[in-house]
């Protein structure tokens, strides 16, 4: 039996969903739209139930594309996902506003169960709800009370499912639910309904005067014009500290484990294409997906705490005014800030922005924020071309340059957002009519399920694309036209003998020559005329192509090309080789101009297939990731060109 779960935002709807389905949750797609469909299963009394978690909404009449899903699925009798019965979560501490949606849904004539949640909060507010009186107004609905936060009420919901009434035509408001577009008719119908609800409330709810609540005291501090921002800054710093401290450990372990796995299979399997595919293509490819999990999990754990505690709504409140001129919303702040760690969770976090245009702009500019994968690239290049000097006696120039690179990314993200805001036309105007939920203690079980959901979505939906691209990149780096690579390998071997290199140096030299003659090497050489104006040679070209897998691959590729074994964690030998690299005319390749040009290139360029895969996942089309690659590519090229000219 298919059940639909409906309710206002902040009513504990997802807690109810978790309570009923536990770990049996899946993410799918509502037919024809970009909205995720969360559904799960459970069984009771021999009946198998499928529960669909519909997007939270205040009314059946849709105000956003997410809410339209609710209207379309419930009103349209043909809809393939139309539920056979409805579970409506109602916040007992805010009955009047919640009953609007409930009564609308009740009038649809589907078997209906009211889940009166947060009954404890209502108690604390001295609200007395006369359940029998409520039942009289909705005689054909079942009503149960729950406190989903402490997992209370599951059995009451199960029992009520057994006695759900087939509807016999009783309606709360006699007027019909009208069309989704006719605002005038909606206004009339809503007015009638709200008058009826007002009377109902007067009959069934008695309220005693209350003291100033905990929430309003905390609000005085958290949205304070000075303290508010200070606290938000501290919260961010704390989160990033945690992520950089704790994500690295599992990331190193994953890195090492996959390397070991590759070595193991390379050792036990016979040499050949299939072994190479497995040990150099597939296993590192999967490793390249798994490596992101610690960062994604940690970030969503923290975002989950901010969201569940109610603090996020306060951050949105104090940031909205600053984000608005850029076509963004207060809610964009979290995705953008997350992108400083990694754009993948950043793009996924944009889900909380209800307005599609604002969400899209946020997704499109998020990768311009300098993520942690750029750090190794920045560090290498800064060490290469920026002298270790101090300005004004105390400021380290290298540190200053690093800071400027971050700043460049942020400023460009805002500028691009502003331009996109002017270009992307959409009727849906952004608004901030937003409920500020009361502060609550986050529940670990809810957080755990959120993290699990995000990781699952990333691994299954984006992982496939990442794996496919990494195998393609591997093939391009491993194979060349006809026997060109073998010949190059043999030649390199002979040259190495003439040069009297040690066996290890020979290996490095051979792999460097092989890479040069692979398809990627050929691509690198082919694009040389294009990248020459911005100061790069074909060796940098090859690294640009390979680092599309992930930006930090740039460092490894440079090491291979310059035949430096990347043994220790330091890049010192690579730095030496790069410094010695000379052009035909004897000037060094890595001049200040080329170095700065490369840094600017890496600030702007969309060199991350994992992010692209996630953007495809979140926008449900290839259009936007392609737009992103193109606009960021143009920015990177122009930016690098300007930098190169300026510093030449």
């Amino acid at each position, binding site marked *: 039996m298919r059940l639909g779960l409906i309710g206002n935002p902040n009513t504990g709807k997802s807690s109810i969903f978790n309570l009923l389905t536990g770990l049996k949750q899946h993410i799918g797609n509502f037919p024809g739209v970009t909205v995720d469909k969360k559904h799960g299963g459970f069984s009771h009394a021999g009946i198998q139930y499928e529960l669909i978690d519909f997007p939270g909404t*205040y*009314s059946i*009449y849709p*105000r956003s594309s997410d809410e339209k899903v609710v209207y379309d699925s419930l009103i349209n009798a043909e809809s393939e996902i139309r539920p056979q019965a409805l579970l409506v979560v109602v916040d007992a*501490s*805010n009955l*009047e*506003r919640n009953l*609007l949606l409930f009564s609308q849904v009740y009038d649809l004539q589907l078997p209906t169960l009211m889940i009166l949640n947060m009954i404890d909060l209502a108690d604390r*507010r001295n609200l007395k709800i006369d359940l029998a009186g409520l039942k009289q107004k909705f005689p054909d609905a079942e009503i149960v009370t729950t406190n989903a936060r402490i997992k209370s009420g599951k059995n009451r919901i199960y029992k009520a499912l057994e006695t759900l009434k087939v509807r016999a035509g009783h309606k709360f408001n006699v007027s019909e639910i009208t069309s989704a577009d006719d*605002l005038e008719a*909606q*206004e009339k119908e*809503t*007015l009638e309904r*709200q008058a009826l609800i007002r009377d109902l409330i007067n009959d069934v709810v008695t309220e005693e005067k209350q003291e100033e609540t905990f*929430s*309003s005291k905390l*609000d*005085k501090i958290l*949205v304070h*014009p000075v303290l508010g921002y200070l606290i938000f800054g501290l919260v961010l710093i704390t989160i990033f500290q945690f992520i950089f401290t704790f994500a690295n450990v599992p990331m190193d372990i994953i890195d090492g484990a996959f390397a070991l796995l590759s070595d193991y299979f390379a050792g036990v399997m016979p040499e050949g294409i299939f072994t190479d595919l497995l040990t150099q293509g597939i296993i590192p490819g999967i490793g390249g997906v798994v490596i992101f999990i610690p960062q994604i999990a940690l970030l969503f754990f923290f975002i989950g705490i901010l969201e569940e505690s109610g603090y996020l*709504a306060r951050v*949105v*409140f*104090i940031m*909205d*005014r600053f984000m608005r001129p850029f076509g963004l919303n*207060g809610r964009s702040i979290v995705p953008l800030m997350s992108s400083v760690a990694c754009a993948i969770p950043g793009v996924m976090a944009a889900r909380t922005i209800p307005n599609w245009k604002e969400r899209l702009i946020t997704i499109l500019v998020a990768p311009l924020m300098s993520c942690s994968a750029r750090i190794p690239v920045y560090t290498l290049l800064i060490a290469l071309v920026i002298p270790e000097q101090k300005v004004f006696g105390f400021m380290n120039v290298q540190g200053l340059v690093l800071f400027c690179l971050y700043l460049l990314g942020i400023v460009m993200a805002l500028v691009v957002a502003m331009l996109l805001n002017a270009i992307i036309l959409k009727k849906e*105007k952004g*608004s*901030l*009519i*937003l*409920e*500020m939920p*009361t502060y609550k203690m986050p529940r670990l079980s809810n957080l755990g399920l959120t993290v699990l959901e995000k990781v699952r979505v990333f691994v299954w939906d984006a992982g496939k694309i990442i794996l496919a691209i990494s195998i393609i990149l591997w093939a391009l780096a491993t194979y060349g036209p006809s026997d060109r690579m073998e010949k190059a390998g043999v030649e390199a071997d002979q040259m190495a003998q003439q040069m009297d290199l040690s066996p290890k140096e020979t290996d490095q030299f051979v792999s460097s020559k092989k890479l040069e003659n692979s398809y990627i090497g050929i691509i690198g050489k082919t694009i040389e005329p294009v990248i020459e104006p911005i100061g790069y040679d074909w060796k940098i070209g090859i690294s640009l192509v390979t680092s599309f897998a992930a930006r930090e691959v740039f460092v490894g590729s440079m090491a291979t090309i310059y035949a430096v074994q990347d043994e220790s964690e330091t890049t010192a030998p690579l730095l030496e080789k790069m410094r010695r690299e000379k052009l035909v005319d004897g000037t060094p390749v890595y001049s200040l101009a080329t170095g700065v040009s490369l840094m600017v290139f890496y600030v702007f360029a969309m060199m991350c297939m994992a992010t692209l895969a996630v953007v495809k996942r979140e926008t449900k089309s290839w259009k936007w990731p392609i737009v992103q690659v193109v606009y960021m590519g143009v920015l990177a090229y122009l930016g690098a060109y300007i930098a190169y000219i300026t510093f030449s």
Partner: protein
Amino acid sequence: MVTELDKIANGRLVTVDSLKDSNLKVKLMEMGLISGKKVKVLFRAPFGDPIAIDIEGYVLSLRRSEANLIYVNSEKSL
């Protein structure tokens, strides 16, 4: 005295009179802003925008332009 909600100072309690015609009108109604509701202006973000209000027990944030769509009755004595 009838005035728009965005003109009301923090801490004051007012009653919703009516809503201006706009495509946000039904949305605002759905959020509980219907005539006769008691609304308290709680606080404002820096630069006075957005505004947080209490609508008989729950807190709603609105941009100033959105608060401007709401006519309220304010009594001098409050």
